[in-house]
């Protein structure tokens, strides 16, 4: 029997995330734990929490899981794991240990699919040098999978989303459009090549990007996932108390992403993300509608968005290109805090 996980879900990958607006509302009411060893907590909505162990060592701790975004269980496992590990890389950390988190409908799917998902996750973890040392599964439909990951980091070398400084240029390391392509795949509008390219990108660890960030001592970065380019940029601009200007025509795109959006293939998550950012965003008067909606597109295992001092940006870009992230591009710049946090232009 050929297993097709896509038959089981409406929204897969990070599109299944709860609305960021809603999340922000509820998080407000959660008491913030006070402990001087919490170096990065919930308050700045960063990619992962960071806890100081001693002067030399802090732990980066994060979790992510989601429903399937592709038919093949092994590939789903790989992508979910790459996405979970990404948050550690976005903070500049080195992933060390992890636990599997799995929801699996044992009465609806053969157990070999379960094994395949775990195998995909485990292979991706090996690639990252990460050891999976346990996990937890409950019976649930549709399936969901991800990891809780712990990484090491030096307490003074944390890369946060509050590290953007006016004058920095903004670099994106992977092309955008996974949400659009995955929606297009379900509607049979996306070409095989687009889907293949999107899957390759989602399986690509942000490890190389993180190494480049460390080499150049970059302070501000995040990874682009469910809240889209604009959503994650907004969180970062707020945490850094700066404004960000994006030239959306410079954003590298996967295959026919633009054409699909032009056809109206705009996933529901994009509208949720638009709701989240619009009060804090100035949209250029002639802003191309398709580009605007691409900036809202929920990414699964998306690229790193890094803020780089303008003097070294050429070196960073060429290092990224040489490391295989050949579509890395400068897509905007950071300015002093202005009336709005985000400025989106063509």
């Amino acid at each position, binding site marked *: 029997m050929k297993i097709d996980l896509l038959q089981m879900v*409406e929204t897969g990958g990070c599109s299944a995330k709860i609305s960021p607006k809603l999340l922000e509302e509820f998080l407000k009411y959660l008491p913030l734990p006070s402990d001087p060893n919490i170096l990065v907590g919930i308050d700045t909505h960063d990619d992962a929490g960071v806890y100081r162990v001693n002067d030399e060592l802090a732990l980066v701790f994060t979790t992510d899981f989601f429903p399937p975004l592709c038919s093949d269980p092994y590939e789903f496992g790989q992508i979910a794991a790459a996405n979970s590990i990404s948050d550690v890389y976005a903070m500049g950390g080195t992933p060390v240990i992890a636990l599997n988190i799995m929801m699996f409908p044992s009465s609806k799917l053969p157990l070999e699919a379960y094994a395949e998902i775990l195998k995909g996750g485990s292979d991706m973890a090996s690639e990252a040098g990460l050891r999976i040392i346990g996990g937890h599964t409950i019976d649930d439909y549709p399936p969901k999978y991800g990891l809780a990951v712990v990484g090491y980091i030096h307490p003074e070398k944390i890369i946060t989303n509050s590290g953007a400084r006016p004058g920095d240029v903004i670099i994106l390391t992977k092309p955008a459009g996974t949400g659009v392509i995955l*929606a297009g795949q379900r*509607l049979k*509008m996306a070409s095989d090549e687009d889907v293949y390219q999107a899957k390759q990108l989602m399986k690509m660890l942000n490890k190389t990007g993180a190494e480049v960030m460390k080499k150049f001592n970059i302070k501000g970065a995040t990874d682009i996932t469910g809240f889209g380019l604009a959503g994650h940029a907004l969180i970062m601009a707020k945490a850094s108390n700066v404004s960000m200007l994006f030239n959306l*025509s410079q954003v590298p795109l996967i295959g026919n992403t*633009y*054409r699909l959006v*032009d*056809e*109206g*293939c*705009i*996933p*529901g998550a994009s*509208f949720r993300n*638009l709701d989240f950012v619009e009060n804090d965003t100035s949209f250029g008067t*002639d802003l*191309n*509608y*398709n*580009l*605007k909606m691409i900036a809202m597109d929920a990414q699964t295992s998306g690229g790193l968005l890094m803020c780089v001092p303008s003097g070294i940006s*050429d070196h960073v870009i*060429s290092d990224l*290109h*040489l490391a295989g992230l*050949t*579509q890395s591009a400068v897509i905007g710049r950071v300015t002093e805090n202005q009336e709005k946090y985000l400025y989106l232009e*063509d």
Partner: protein
Amino acid sequence: MQIIDTSGQQCPAPLIATNHALRDSQTGDSFKVITDNLTSFSNISRFLTDNKTEFSYEEANGIWTLTITKRTTDRVAARPEEYCKTEIPHFAQGDFIIAFTSDRMGDGNDELGHLLMGNFIKAIKDLDILPAKMVFYNKGVTLGAEESSVIDHLKEIEKMGVALLLCATCVKFYSLEEKVKIGTLSNMFEIVQVMAKAGNVVKP
């Protein structure tokens, strides 16, 4: 009046159906879109508002019926300059690739060869069907350097949606790492794969 019933369909299928109907109708035409899904209803409304298209709606028992009238502000037809200005790919691409193996076209006088290559690259932009990809190897990679006389044309072709692949070994050989302003660096395996898969390989 045309009625498009998207009942039972999930986002973004109803939005795509609406967009297509909008594109295919004439200014002043009205049509109805039916959806049984609140998310799709709110996304379509948002899409229409953003694109300055008038509509009204009725809701009964969880079924939304939108009546949409096309105005001249159609985002595709009325603002072609927007597409040119933003230089976004919306061009047809065929099952062929172009391989650039040299900075000159044909054998013979070098100066003539350069001139011909410039004209060749310029002419690509006017093709009804663009190549799927363009690969550059050996001396061909120098076409992609910042001082190349055709660099602006290549940038335009890239923005039209054509992927440009440059042989990384060649870029290194000619010490162009810092100067290459287009495309992505590629390896021989990818280049072989792209050439083997293409319906036709055109070589100037």
